[in-house]
């Protein structure tokens, strides 16, 4: 009965009901859409980085600092027998890094030469192309699309690189670009020139040396030693988590403002409705309805706005969410220019938990803001209500 009364009252409020419904619906849509984008961003960033950069964790040489290329010449060491066994079992890949300079078409720019076994299958990038043919006297090398664009290089181009080997002597060689690969992870592309590991070890006079080891198994399962530091997936993705967390904090403030505006609208509507309907409240009391039942009726009325809003959101938000989930949100500038591992299209992640969680939170808040003005009725005397008074 209470639902029926509340339903009739809400419908009879006409435009006021639809305005409230619209405001709550917009709030729901924005929260689900933005949070879906954030979830999609986190999913894409972590998936891409795990597939193309991080693996299942890494072991770093104790001197390795990814933010200081000048220390690369002291950041490599001999691969231990245990790690070598893991490499043979294809459970780990050693990567050697050497600081150098590239001279494409008479220009110069700094580059990090990276050596990787071409037959690895942990990172989902086409390093097997490093075994491809190159003109005699040149070394096959690969670069990413971003690097190719910035240095104006393409497949088949020959560039000269210069580096200082582990003995401190400068040396140079010509490389042939055998493949320009497409990576979503800027760290695998920007300023990187990829060579076969064995070749780079030869060039650097550091046989069986590596700077980092990428593992396909949880990194804790690999042998540890003071010279090598274990980095778990969470350690390596900490900056990504922090980035999304920062974005979520900003989005959270936006949600709070939206929810606050919607709740103000409902509170205002409820307070006005109760004030305007004092006589009706008195009549319901005279007919024998308890104060509690009347409070409950008004609370349900507020909640109905939320239910209508959820239906409205399903009607127009459903197709909108579906569109973004299947077509993705086009990012006007390519991801590597942001410095994050993202492709041209961001696919939001609208999980059931996100949708239900958002609905439950909004419904709960609606119930509270509907109850707050209605609870005054608990202390209202029937004769006062009938006279249209409020004690």
């Amino acid at each position, binding site marked *: *009965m209470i639902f029926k009364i509340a339903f009739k009252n809400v419908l009879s409020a006409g435009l006021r009901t639809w305005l409230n419904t619209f405001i709550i619906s917009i709030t729901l849509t924005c929260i689900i859409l933005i949070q879906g984008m954030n979830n999609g961003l986190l999913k894409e960033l972590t998936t891409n980085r795990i597939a193309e950069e991080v693996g299942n964790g890494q072991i770093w040489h104790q001197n390795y600092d990814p933010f200081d290329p000048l220390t690369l010449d002291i950041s490599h060491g001999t691969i231990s027998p245990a790690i070598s066994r893991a490499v043979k079992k294809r459970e780990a890949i050693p990567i050697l890094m050497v600081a150098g300079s590239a001279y494409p078409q008479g220009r110069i720019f700094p580059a990090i030469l990276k050596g990787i076994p071409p037959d690895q299958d942990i990172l989902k990038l086409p390093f097997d192309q490093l075994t491809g043919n190159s003109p005699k006297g040149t070394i096959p090398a690969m670069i990413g699309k971003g690097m190719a664009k910035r240095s104006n290089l393409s497949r088949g181009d020959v560039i000269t690189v210069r580096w200082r080997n582990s003995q401190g002597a400068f040396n140079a060689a010509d490389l042939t670009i055998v493949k320009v690969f497409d990576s979503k992870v800027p760290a695998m592309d920007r300023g990187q020139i990829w060579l076969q590991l064995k070749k780079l070890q030869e060039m650097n006079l550091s046989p069986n040396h590596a700077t980092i080891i990428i593992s396909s198994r949880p990194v804790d399962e690999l042998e540890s030693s003071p010279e090598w530091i274990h980095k778990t997936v969470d350690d390596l993705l900490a900056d990504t988590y922090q980035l999304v967390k920062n974005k979520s904090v900003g989005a959270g403030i936006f949600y709070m403002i939206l929810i606050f505006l919607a709740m103000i609208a409902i509170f205002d509507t409820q307070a006005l409705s109760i004030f305007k309907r004092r006589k*009706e409240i008195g*009549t319901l*009391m005279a007919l024998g*309805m308890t104060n509690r039942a009347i409070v409950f009726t008004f609370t349900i009325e507020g909640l109905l706005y939320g239910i209508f809003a959820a239906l409205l959101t399903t009607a127009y938000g459903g197709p909108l969410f579906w569109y973004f989930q299947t077509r993705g949100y086009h990012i006007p500038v390519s991801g590597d220019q942001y410095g994050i591992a993202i492709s041209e299209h961001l696919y939001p992640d609208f999980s059931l938990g996100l949708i239900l969680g958002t609905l439950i939170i909004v419904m709960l808040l609606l119930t509270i803001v509907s109850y707050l003005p209605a609870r005054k009725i608990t202390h209202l005397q*029937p*004769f006062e209500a009938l006279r249209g008074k409020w004690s």
Partner: protein
Amino acid sequence: MEPVIAVSNLDKTFPVANEDFFALQNINLQFAPGEFSGIVGPSGSGKTTLLNIMGSLDKPTKGKVYFMGDEITAYSSKESAQLRSRKIGFIFQTYNLLPVYTVYENLELPLILLGMSTAEKKQAIMDSLEWVGLTDKVKSKPAQLSGGQCQRVAIARAMVKKPAVILADEPTANLDSENSHIILKTMKKINDASGSTFIFSTHDDKVIGYLKRKITLVDGGIQQDETF
């Protein structure tokens, strides 16, 4: 015969400028089942306040009210609501019909509170509307009815649950003479047929002409209690 309502040594005061204003003072009354009585008096004499207290819509400052032997002045808010739901029907000066409901739904509301089945509700509603001659208006909303028709719907709503007592507060105040007589005749007919006790609060001579008992209230006290 046990009175349906008995009022004993009742006072009602309101605070006015740090002093107690006596709206009702030392009221002692008894109403027998089936009475067609009226509390009459000028504006501010305490008629509506007395009616509200007898209908458990308000509490006295002092004294007791018994409804069919039970002291209702000691009732909790929930018990008062149950009493009003089961045993008392109200008719108001401004009809107090719920505007968003049809005539049928306005009459259905008190029956829903009693937990009646759909078939029982329908029968009771149609019987009530027949008494007031509005069976053709079941689907109309209050805004589509005249003042007289609205008050007849209010009478039907008050009697639909067959209460022991119907309390009518100035039921003809908003009606013209013709409609007032129609309403009063309807209520008299219901009183004769159902045996429900009717208690009016009024200063309308047309109503007074129909009463079997007239209690005159002046400045919160009973001045005269006449039976015709």
